[in-house]
């Protein structure tokens, strides 16, 4: 289908199914129950983040997964995309399509410039170059370009760029009620949702989510095609041995630069979508720890695999959400079957890992994945699957050592 082989078609269909049915899958518990408060993730804001960060990490994976160039400044493109989208809302109109288009173009141009400069070096130097350039963007966006008192206020500094009532908005319909206009796609507001009550379950279908999900699916499809194309093959060759490629008389830099620009455009698209869902862009999106988080998501899921980035982004966002919701009271109710002393001890210990301490848990998980599962969760899944299939066969064939890529 669509020029994909059978395996990829299955994978793509599964992802389509998951994305379209997400409001059901993520809401397994009836509304109002205590489990629902904890584990249900089917509300618009979180679902949007799943797919948007999915796009971001799919793009990052095209660069890091295929070419092995570890960019530690990818959040810069996310920020640039966000800012350009908000500017589009301010100047032109509240339709999201032009905004997203602009954020893709602007971040693509930036990626071309930054990539041209930083791809002159590889390895650790490339990482530090991207890191330095991204920090430069962050610092500029935070201070000089965002000084509210100057004439040239591009980013609005600490407060972040936001809509206001006296924006020009050439194509925008005038709002009379004094409320800020909402982002929309030809009239369908991004924030509007349709709620369907089935028994005690409540499912929310959000316009913004479905819009982002469709874009995510398109991005995912493009990424499959890139992975399977001669271009993708070339990028993989760069990863395995760039020197040998150069010896054959082939200039690899245009290919890597193309990959860098593509992944920059993906990041800009994600930024534009983030702004479309909530028209507010802040500089903290560009901070280097945000770039680190992108790397974490990619590694968690599985670098160089097709589905890994989506898994990683979803996993990271989901656990961030759940872990930060758990507090001491919930822990007490969960562990109430234990004797009191032990219960208090355990709650006191777990206290550091949940609620405000969710960063710690994610950090530990990230380290464990890097140490034991360099191929990420996808590799973990493959190992488990292999374990089961071997048991079923009952044969003692040693598993062929497979690279996690594919």
């Amino acid at each position, binding site marked *: 289908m669509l020029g994909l082989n059978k395996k990829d078609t299955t994978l793509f269909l599964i992802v389509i199914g998951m994305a379209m049915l997400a409001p059901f899958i993520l809401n397994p518990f009836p509304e109002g129950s205590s489990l629902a408060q904890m584990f249900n993730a089917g509300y618009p804001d979180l679902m949007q983040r799943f797919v948007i960060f999915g796009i971001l990490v799919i793009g990052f994976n095209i660069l890091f997964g295929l070419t*092995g160039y*570890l960019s*530690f400044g990818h959040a810069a493109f996310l920020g640039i995309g966000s800012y350009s989208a908000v500017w589009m809302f301010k100047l032109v109109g509240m339709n999201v399509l032009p905004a997203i288009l602009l954020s893709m173009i602007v971040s693509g141009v930036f990626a071309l410039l930054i990539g041209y*400069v930083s791809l*002159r*070096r*590889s*390895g*650790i*130097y490339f*990482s*530090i*170059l991207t*890191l*330095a*350039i991204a*920090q*430069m963007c962050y*610092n*500029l966006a*935070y*201070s*000089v*370009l965002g000084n509210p008192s100057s004439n040239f206020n591009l980013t609005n500094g600490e407060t972040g760029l936001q809509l206001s009532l006296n924006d020009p908005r050439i194509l925008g319909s005038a709002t009379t009620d004094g409320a800020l206009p909402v982002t929309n796609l030809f009239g369908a507001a991004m924030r509007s949702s349709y709620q369907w009550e089935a028994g005690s379950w409540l499912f929310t279908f959000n316009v913004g989510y479905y819009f982002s999900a469709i874009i995510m699916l398109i991005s995912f499809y493009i990424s499959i095609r890139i992975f399977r194309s001669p271009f993708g093959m070339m990028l993989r060759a760069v990863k395995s041995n*760039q*020197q040998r490629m150069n010896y054959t008389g082939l200039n690899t830099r245009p290919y890597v630069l193309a990959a860098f620009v593509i992944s920059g455009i993906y990041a800009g698209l994600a930024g534009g979508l983030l702004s479309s869902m909530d028209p507010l862009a802040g500089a903290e999106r560009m901070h*280097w*720890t945000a770039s*680190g988080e992108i*790397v*974490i998501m990619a*590694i968690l899921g599985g670098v160089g695999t097709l589905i890994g980035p989506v898994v990683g982004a979803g996993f990271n966002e989901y656990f961030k959400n759940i872990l930060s919701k758990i507090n001491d009271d919930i822990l007490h109710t969960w562990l109430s079957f234990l004797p009191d002393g032990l219960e208090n001890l355990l709650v006191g210990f777990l206290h*550091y890992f949940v609620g405000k*301490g969710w*960063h*710690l848990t*994610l*950090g*530990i998980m*990230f*380290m464990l994945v*890097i*140490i034991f599962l*360099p191929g990420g969760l996808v590799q973990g899944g493959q190992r488990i699957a292999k374990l089961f299939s071997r048991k079923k066969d009952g044969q003692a064939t040693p598993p062929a050592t497979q690279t996690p890529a594919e």
Partner: protein
Amino acid sequence: MDSIILQILNGLDKGSAYALIALGLTLIFGTLGVVNFAHGALFMIGAFCAVTLKKILTLSSVVEDPTKTDFLGKPLKVATPYVESWFGEATGAALIDWAVPLAILFSIPIMIGVGFIMERGLIKHFYKRPHADQILVTFGLAIVLQEVIKAFYGANPIPTPAPAVFRGSFDFGVLLGFDPNAIIYPYWRMVYFAFSAVIIGAVFAFLRFTTFGMVVRAGMADRETVGLLGINIDKRFTIMFGIAAAVAGLAGVMYAPINSPNYHMGMDFLVLSFVVVVVGGMGSLPGAVLAGFMLGILEAFASMNQIKAIIPGIDQIIIYLVAIIIILTRPRGLMGKKGVMEE
């Protein structure tokens, strides 16, 4: 003229911190070949050693004094630190006052221990893995360490003042024959600079003049051959990791009065220190020190109002700009050897 000297002085204290952290980073990179993203976290742990010692010293026994009342009319609670009741009031107060310098002694064993555990427990397993994996695992470790510190000390900066003698400023300009009040410089920053100069000198002397240092240098040049000579180079490199951690920790301890320690100070310094290492040249110790001071001073100059008026925002990006130019034009850095990490 006086404003130039003032900016150089202003750059020195930050430059000292950069130089110390970059020195440790380079020691680790030169010996073990590992790019340690957790080095900023070591700097932060050092700063929190100072906080901890201060807390330990001010542990107090609380007694109610029935003769006095507080503003609510209840008996006044008088807190006497244990050190004051043990060593007498004057000595105790002096001990508390000198908590930060004392933390130097306190932090060295802790930092060396942390370094040992880090190297033996984690980084040892990553020598054979690609550089990207080393970066990522140490980055993860840095996150974990900073979150642990946050869990115990909270997210707010903790003021940790210098001893009373070193608080305040002195008129440096008078010493050089300028007008009074032209160059005012805080005492503690002078102390910090002198301290870092001593540490840097000590590290270089250790590598230069001791047999141990000689072996380590030989190992940096050619690890395999040294190993073939029957020297256990791994053990010595582990010790060097401990020393590098201690250098970062000491930089943190003494930095605590300049900038109140908070849990993300390590991350803030980390990026800049990497830039410093790259500018100085990967694996070059003198390069790291030189680049540290140079970038510190450049940053100070760039934040002058006259310069900011010409190029707005230059103070925010000058270091990165220099780094980008250096990497692109001279990838081995100012003093780096040819062929180190030059792909």
